[in-house]
């Protein structure tokens, strides 16, 4: 155990640095608004260069000014504990958390690969460039990266997707986060992973930041059920505990301003009976199960509340 007095002084020093950082963070946000005003004023005096300047102005607004303003404001008013919603990198409420999984990382990878899902590349300069060129040329990019969404204060651990009709604009996709040790879902359910699955239906502009982004389909429950069904079909050992009315059903918007609706059910996919090395090698099926919510391989258990 560290000495309490040194710990306290360490925290005070860190918090004075944090205050300074917050000061610069907010000041940069305000300065960027001023810069937007300056650029808008300047563009009025620039006859022929107007279009070029308008693009520059949009880029500044969409990728620097609005994200920073959202970061400042959402830090103040969006709760940072688990409310069943992910957050975008600008702090806005993102896609709903609509799946949970029990099992090791290897088991999750094995089950999704068997169910015809492709792991998404990480976001790098190279993969970003490839997603632009493949979109323009309408060529498929099966491992296209997905945008970062945050849960537990961090970006997803990995994401899987299924492209639809060789069109990079449309795809099924699901992001996974490993739960912190000892963490439980509301209601005291212990799971290894939580996930957010949505269907990208087109490319468009975000309502809140004006950035180019994927627009998602409103009916997130259809995507959730598609993910569960595809895994159950490919991996017969999959058990499912369906927590009915885990959240109240709601209509809302995600971080890009797209409408979303859900009935609030949360399927917990149990992959602990899946052999991690490969689904087809299934001789050891069923021996790894042994947790608190272990289900019979292949079974679906419904969990309903008080009534």
């Amino acid at each position: 155990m560290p000495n309490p007095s040194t710990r306290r002084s360490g925290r005070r020093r860190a918090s004075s640095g944090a205050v300074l950082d917050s000061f610069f963070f907010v000041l940069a946000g305000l300065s960027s608004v001023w810069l937007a005003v300056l650029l808008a004023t300047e563009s009025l005096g620039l006859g022929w260069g107007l279009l070029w300047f308008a693009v520059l102005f949009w880029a500044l607004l969409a990728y620097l000014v609005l994200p920073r303003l959202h970061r400042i404001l959402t830090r103040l008013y969006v709760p940072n504990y688990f409310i069943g919603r992910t957050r975008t990198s600008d702090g806005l409420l993102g896609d709903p958390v609509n799946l949970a999984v029990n099992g090791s990382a290897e088991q999750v990878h094995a089950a999704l690969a068997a169910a015809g899902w492709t792991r998404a590349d990480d976001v790098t300069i190279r993969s970003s460039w490839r997603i632009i060129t493949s979109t323009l040329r309408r060529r498929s990019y099966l491992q296209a990266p997905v945008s970062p969404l945050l849960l537990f204060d961090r970006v997803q651990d990995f994401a899987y997707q299924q492209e639809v009709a060789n069109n990079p604009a449309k795809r099924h996709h699901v992001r996974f986060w490993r739960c912190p040790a000892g963490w439980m879902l509301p209601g005291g359910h212990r799971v290894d992973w939580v996930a957010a699955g949505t269907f990208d239906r087109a490319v468009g502009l975000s309502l809140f930041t004006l950035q180019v982004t994927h627009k998602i389909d409103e009916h997130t429950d259809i995507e959730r059920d598609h993910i569960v069904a595809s895994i159950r079909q490919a991996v017969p050992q999959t058990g499912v505990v369906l927590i009915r009315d885990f959240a109240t059903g709601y209509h809302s918007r995600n971080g890009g301003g797209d409408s979303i609706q859900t009935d609030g059910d949360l399927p917990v996919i149990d992959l602990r009976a899946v052999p991690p090395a490969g689904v087809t090698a299934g001789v050891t099926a069923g021996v790894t199960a042994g947790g608190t919510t272990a289900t019979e391989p292949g079974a679906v258990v419904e969990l309903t509340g008080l009534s």
Partner: protein
Amino acid sequence: MTGVDAPAPGDTVTGANDPPRRPASVMGGALLMVARAITGGFVILTVLSRWDEFEATVVVEGDRLTPVDASAAATVLGWLLAGYGLLLVLYLGLTALVFTGRNWARVLAMSMATVSILISFTDYALNGAQITLRTSLVSVTIDILILLALSSTNARHYARAVRTRRLARLTRPG
């Protein structure tokens, strides 16, 4: 930050021995700082190329020195340029430290950008100064972009991660 006491992004991905990955905001911020230094270099080049014109504008205690005392004016101008050049070199050194993730360098660079922005803003708001492409729009833009880049969460986490790693290495025996 409130809520779950989760480690910062990067901490979970990289182990204690891996160097933290430099985020795009730090690279962009450092590039902009280099751009800022280059614009300063252009100022020096401009003065050198039109030495006589600038020499004629040197004013000491309210009196123009040329043509009466041209050599004194040249000395003053020379020292001013040399001082400015030295500052630019120091600024490039600061850029290198920001790039390698020194937190104090990041805070100092942000402070310098802040002072510069506030001076321009005061001039704009109180004296009605025109900030256009012909005057100071480019340098104001660069200052604001530097401040935006270096104050971002990624840049902050990176500087913290580098410091944590350095402290860990310093305290480790052997």
